[in-house]
């Protein structure tokens, strides 16, 4: 298994990582323009409002693209997954033979321990 580096967390996004530790996936939403965004910021990247809030995501997503590197147990699959809420996240696809993956397939969030840090959200086939 690939060791997952511990995320270097900034205060602005600590809540996202604390939720991940509890098995919850958060996403930022702007109360001013209604857009969801990722990575999370205090300031909305669409309208620059500071009226952004954490909302709990459904954890459901669609596979946008992916690529597997490495051999055997050390292999990992980098991917973009598009949340049902809108934003596309960089992630890993786990618990699956990468040869069976297909763009457009449905995914669900799972959480993996990192190397001495917060839990890291990843995705597996739904």
């Amino acid at each position: 298994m690939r060791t997952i580096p511990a995320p270097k967390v900034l205060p602005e996004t600590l809540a996202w990582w604390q939720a991940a530790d509890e098995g919850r996936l958060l996403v930022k939403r702007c109360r001013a323009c209604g857009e969801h965004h990722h990575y999370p910021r205090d300031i909305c990247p669409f309208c620059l409002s500071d009226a952004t809030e954490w909302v709990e995501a459904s954890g459901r997503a669609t596979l946008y693209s992916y690529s597997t590197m490495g051999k055997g147990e050390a292999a990992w699959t980098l991917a973009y997954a598009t949340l049902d809420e809108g934003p596309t996240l960089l992630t890993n696809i786990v618990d699956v033979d990468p040869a069976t993956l297909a763009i457009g397939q449905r995914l669900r969030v799972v959480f993996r321990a990192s190397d001495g840090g917060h839990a890291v959200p990843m995705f597996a086939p739904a």
Partner: protein
Amino acid sequence: MSLNGTAAIVGAYEHPTRQADGLSVLRLHADVAKGALADAGLAKSDVDAYFCAGDAPGLGTTTVAEYLGLKLRHVDSTECGGSAPILHVAHAAAAIAAGRCNVALITLAGRPRAALAEAEARAAAAGGKPGRAPLALKPPDPDAPELAFELPYGPATQNLYAMVARRHMHEFGTTSEQLACIKVAASTHAQHNPNAMLRKLVTVEEVVNSPLVADPLHRLDCCVMSDGGGALIVARPEIARSLKRPLVMLRGSGEAPKHAMGGKIDLTYSAAAWSGPAAFAEAGITPAQIQYASLYDSFTITVLMQLEDLGFCRKGEGGRFVQDGNLIAGVGRLPFNTDGGGLCNNHPANRGGVTKVIEAVRQLRGEAHPAVQVKDCRWALASGIGGALASRHTAATLILERL
């Protein structure tokens, strides 16, 4: 203000080394600066502006100016990865047009290969395992807000570009064989470059049968890793006309960053879709008039994306465009990277921007290798993608005319 006709490229020089054992990064910058000045027929004292990006050590412009003993009145260290020197040419023209300088020096140089060999030797001496290739431009910055949301997932340049290729295949039916045609064209040209790292002609079958690095990209879809560098001299047109070199005039330029856009990821286009039209509008010509193109070729997919985004073919048709030798000099519609490019020649400091401009200048002057020289080359384009195609990058486009 239009930059069309405000400056000319009067000097261009590519370092011949591909593994700079025993040469410091500053020595490489100095070597290419001297080479470009000699090429232009100018003296160090003529230079009054200097441009470099993140490959220059220390304080960048200040550090290199000190090493070379330059007396300057304008500096610019805009850092956007491998496309930086292409963008620097336009910034130099803007500075010249604004009266801030007359002769601008641009350098790029580095030694990732030699540094890796040294690190591996040290690790072996200590009984450890050899390190991995330092592909990243810089160590991760803990203040970069995206870092926590990316690094745990193992982005590694190759797999980021691979995701663009995968999506292109999904959307448009592009194949690995079509991407391989880009490497075949580059290797066809590299045969004639004695300095190229990979001079052997490869076939489509050899590319698609080379080991998968990050699926669907194979080893031969990737550029080489090399040391070396290059330099350019950009001058006021009056000065350019006083020199004994063919006149290579800046006609069009564009620059644009593209990023993850708050999560609205769309991998079907690059920032060249924005920088390209700006450059063509400034030049007042169309893509069909370009006779030679230097296209950033960190990976085969990078070339395909630029061909579409710069308007050489329609979106989604890049795969068909690169077939049938269309990128090969003397054969196809758009000869590209006639030095062998990053795919076969070199990719100094993991940055391919300066060599893109250098080969375009050679083509316009009629100084490319005779086997790959485009006949009566009047219009050339140089395009760069600095950063990572799938996440964040900056595109820079130049259109040049030989007068």
